[in-house]
């Protein structure tokens, strides 16, 4: 199955990716090839098979809901483009 332009537009929006015109055209073509390639999975004999949940069959480990890390905010925020008083700044959302 191949993807049309509207589908790729929709996927790019869901993924929050702005594509240039060239990238968009290339994505329609290459994503169609990828989807056509993975379509062969439909032929696999999976009736009654339970989907894999974990590659080595481990249960999800849980821990007590307690603070274990120290306060490293200032160091971490050195990687942010725009912060003020410990807050991350973004363009205004509500007028």
């Amino acid at each position, binding site marked *: 199955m191949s*993807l049309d332009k509207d*589908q*790729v537009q929709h*996927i*790019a*929006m*869901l*993924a*929050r*990716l*702005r*594509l*240039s015109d060239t*990238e968009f055209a*290339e*994505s329609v073509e*290459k*994503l169609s*090839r*990828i*989807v056509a*390639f*993975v*379509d*062969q*999975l*439909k032929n*696999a*004999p*999976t009736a009654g*098979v*339970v*989907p*894999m*949940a*974990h*590659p*080595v069959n*481990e249960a*999800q*480990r849980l*821990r007590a809901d307690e603070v274990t890390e120290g306060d*490293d905010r200032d*160091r*971490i925020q*050195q*990687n*942010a*483009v*725009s912060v003020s008083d410990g807050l*991350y700044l*973004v*363009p*205004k*959302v509500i007028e």
Partner: protein
Amino acid sequence: MTALHRRSLVELKSGLASGEFSSVELTETLLARIAGEGAGLNAFITVLADQALVAASAADDARAAGKAGVLNGLPIVHKDIFCMRDVRTTCGSRMLENFVAPYDATLVARLSAAGAVVLGKSNMDEFAMGSSNETSYFGPVRNPWDLERSPGGSSGGSAAAVAAGLVPAATGTDTGGSIRQPAALTNTVGLKPTYGRVSRYGMIAFASSLDQAGVITRSAADAALLLGVMAGFDERDSTSVDVPVPDYSDTLATPVKGLRIGIVRQHFDEGLESSCRSAVREALATLEAQGATLTEVDLPNLDYCVPTYYVVAPAECSSNLSRFDGVRFGYRAEDPRDLLDLYCRSRGEGFGAEVKRRIMTGTYVLSAGYYDAYYLQAQKVRQLIADDFARAFAEVDVIAGPTTPTPAFKLGDKTDDPITMYLNDIYTIGANLAGLPAMSLPCGMARQLPVGLHLVGPHWSEARLLQLAHQYQLQTDWHLATPEAYA
């Protein structure tokens, strides 16, 4: 006497212990190679010359004080996917071009605590998505065996650096073959441990149910030495498994007599280049002569490995990479109109083409109306593939075959068609889907280019893979072959 840059970790360890040379001398020698003959390979994103010399000097002091760790003073390189405190960690992406990690990955911390000296951060495919190192924002790495060719990927910088004698060992990560394929194409040893064996804390995530950290070295004994330090439970990684870590170096000397090796017929069909086929067949004959037995085993769902991977891995990548939003860290687009524009342009400009392609593939297979047909179906097929391996391992101890269908290909040869590139990993992906340990080791030459022998074992059987590889290396000297320009 072998030149320092050609010695193994095990040899360097004894040289340091006997006082033949210091860690500072060793570090200076390798830093000079990295800046000199190695520079044209583009194997490094960041060289940590000053920091390495400080660490080497500290290691020499520790030794003088009688406090030498297991890896005291030994040089290594980290793939630039591992966070290292106060060091730029890019993951090969414009998105993280200026990201300075605020903490150490567990693997980095463990190796440093054992005394290892980090020479730098190696080049890689962007976010580890690629099989040729051509998706790196920092340019492709070149293969020391032929500069026109790719060293493979995504751990291509690590593999090229080890092959060219810029460093004896490097860390890597393997989601579908990203340690083993570059190891095969550069004549190095690459080990991907069992899923959950080595902590992924501080390793930038690509596909969390497949990613595993490992090593690239020039000998199986060196891989055993490093794995012993890296492996083990870490409460900071929720998928880390609490299984005891054996002494991997201890069992290397055990002969392979009686070991049952499984051969998969489809691994040797027309998809495999004939020159590679003969090299792998010869390696199997050598192991048979050493007392191992060869048995044919069947993996009936083998053909589904690559398509299964290209549903599961992109799905997980689309989820993992949603954290890069231009707000808290990473690239932010100039003058965003509004918040949505900030997200879309930061991600559109910060990610390269292959990463965007995989995010979109993953978004599609997880989207409403397609989830059952693609993602759920792929997880079912993945279980079938894991079951195939489990059945095979009831009959054999190890499965052996080729690592890659061809030797190193030319840069630019496979960039037009994603499917052609994806099929590079046809023999390696199964181990990731089933969480199995696997390794590649040098086993011959085809068209004057290295060929890799691929070994896969049951969960937690790293010691057996390393033993088999070491015994093979006692009998052969393919792993000592060196690219002429870097001898």
